[in-house]
């Protein structure tokens, strides 16, 4: 069992967490001017990096979303931090 660091609760078991999305996606605005291709890219396309990845996770037991940097090969956690505007 791997332990992941929640910025709010500290180290907890991996089963308490859920991967949400790759970090850094910016929702295209304003909606009426967004093409299908740009919207699909925002919704679906990923980098799926092999190695260091910056991801958004949710700690399901406290309900907070946060950013975690990990290595997708070794599974080492590099850092975890609250989303901007949330105290961690």
């Amino acid at each position, binding site marked *: *069992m*791997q332990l992941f660091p929640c910025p709010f609760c500290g180290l907890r*078991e*991996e*089963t308490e967490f*859920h*991967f949400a999305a790759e970090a850094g996606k910016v929702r295209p605005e304003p909606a009426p001017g967004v093409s*299908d*291709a740009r*919207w*699909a*890219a925002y*919704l*679906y*396309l*990923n*980098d*799926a990096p*092999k190695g260091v*990845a910056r*991801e958004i996770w949710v700690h399901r037991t406290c309900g907070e979303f946060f950013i975690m940097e990990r290595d*997708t*090969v*070794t*599974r080492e956690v590099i850092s975890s931090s609250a989303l901007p505007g949330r105290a961690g």
Partner: protein
Amino acid sequence: MTMQRYSGLSLVREGLRGHRGWRPAWRKATPAAAYDAVIVGGGGHGLATAYYLARQHNMRRVAVLEKGWIGGGNTGRNTTVVRSNYFYPESVALYDLSLRLFEGLSRELNFNVMLSQRGMLIAAHTPMQMEICARIANAMQLNGVDGSLLSAKEARRRLPLLNNTADARFACMGGIWQGRAGVARHDAVAWGYARAASALGVDIVEGCTVTDLLTEGGAVTGVETSHGTIRADRIGLAAAGATPGLAALAGVRLPIHAYALQAFVSEPVKPILDTVLLYLGTGTYVSQSDKGELVFGGGLDRVPSYGQRGNLPMQETVISGLLEMFPAFAQLKLLRQWAGVVDVVPDSSPVIGPAGPEGLYINCGWGTGGFKAIPAGGWLLAHLMATGAHHEISRPFDLSRFAEGRLIDEAAGSGIAH
């Protein structure tokens, strides 16, 4: 190189001669400077693509580039189940093409892929699940493949070791039966396609890593590899979890997350299970190999990963699911556990079609279900690479479906566990 044909007679002859006359099944090729088509990935899908390019489309200047060894990725890491019990017409057309090709494959390749159509039960344990099973069975029949609803009594007759005691958490209520489903020897599928493709002139290059995709004026012109530059104006990617990294070399992003999918085998025992079983309630599925091992698996590890290992929580989920179904299996020792890196897309359906620069084609997104699709994946990618146009069966699976909102959501349709 002419192919050394296998037969009962050749077995007897070699048996009498001390098995000294067998030749390698395929040539170990060194790559030429240029080909008409290059396929990246020497698993089942890539090898099948090369075979059908040569066999169906008469393209003989074809190379398969494999960074490791033939069938050493997901083709050698799956649980060998073949089936076509899906929901949507597009999916059934695709997976049943594959199953039909599997049914003739040993003869086609002159290589025994040990196809055993022992039937598969998708088992339900609640009235709601039975209703979903009835819906899928109806859809299968409407789509022209064999599928029927099995009663609890009939399911228990076929699976006498199932836990049906009064306190069983998941007492079986019946489920969907597909009689043509079964298992095939996974290594044999890779080796059979490799041998037949090699005999038709395809170069199979193992230990050859692709480091760059070369493009000029918006079209692919070749690949840079650990064995030097190889020119080709048609390139097919059939690399499962490695596809995002390869596509990125041509600036193409894909709707893929890479996850580890685990599988397990127990020590071998005498025959105790003669069907394939998937339990909706536990997510665990199991069959017994010809050697007697129980081969089983479940859902994805829930952590995106390129590590071919697998994590402990999912092992616990899968094994506890197995023991809930078959308490008697608690006596067995686990022999091996491993993981493959699978390419998961949002609608749990594959992506087959052109991508990015002209001449680049992809066959990926099979997620947890790529093995059963090997013959169809190869057939359809070969059609694309030879003609430049979709086969009617692959057209719905084009990458454009994400921008057009035409998702083929088999996660919702047939209850795929991701």
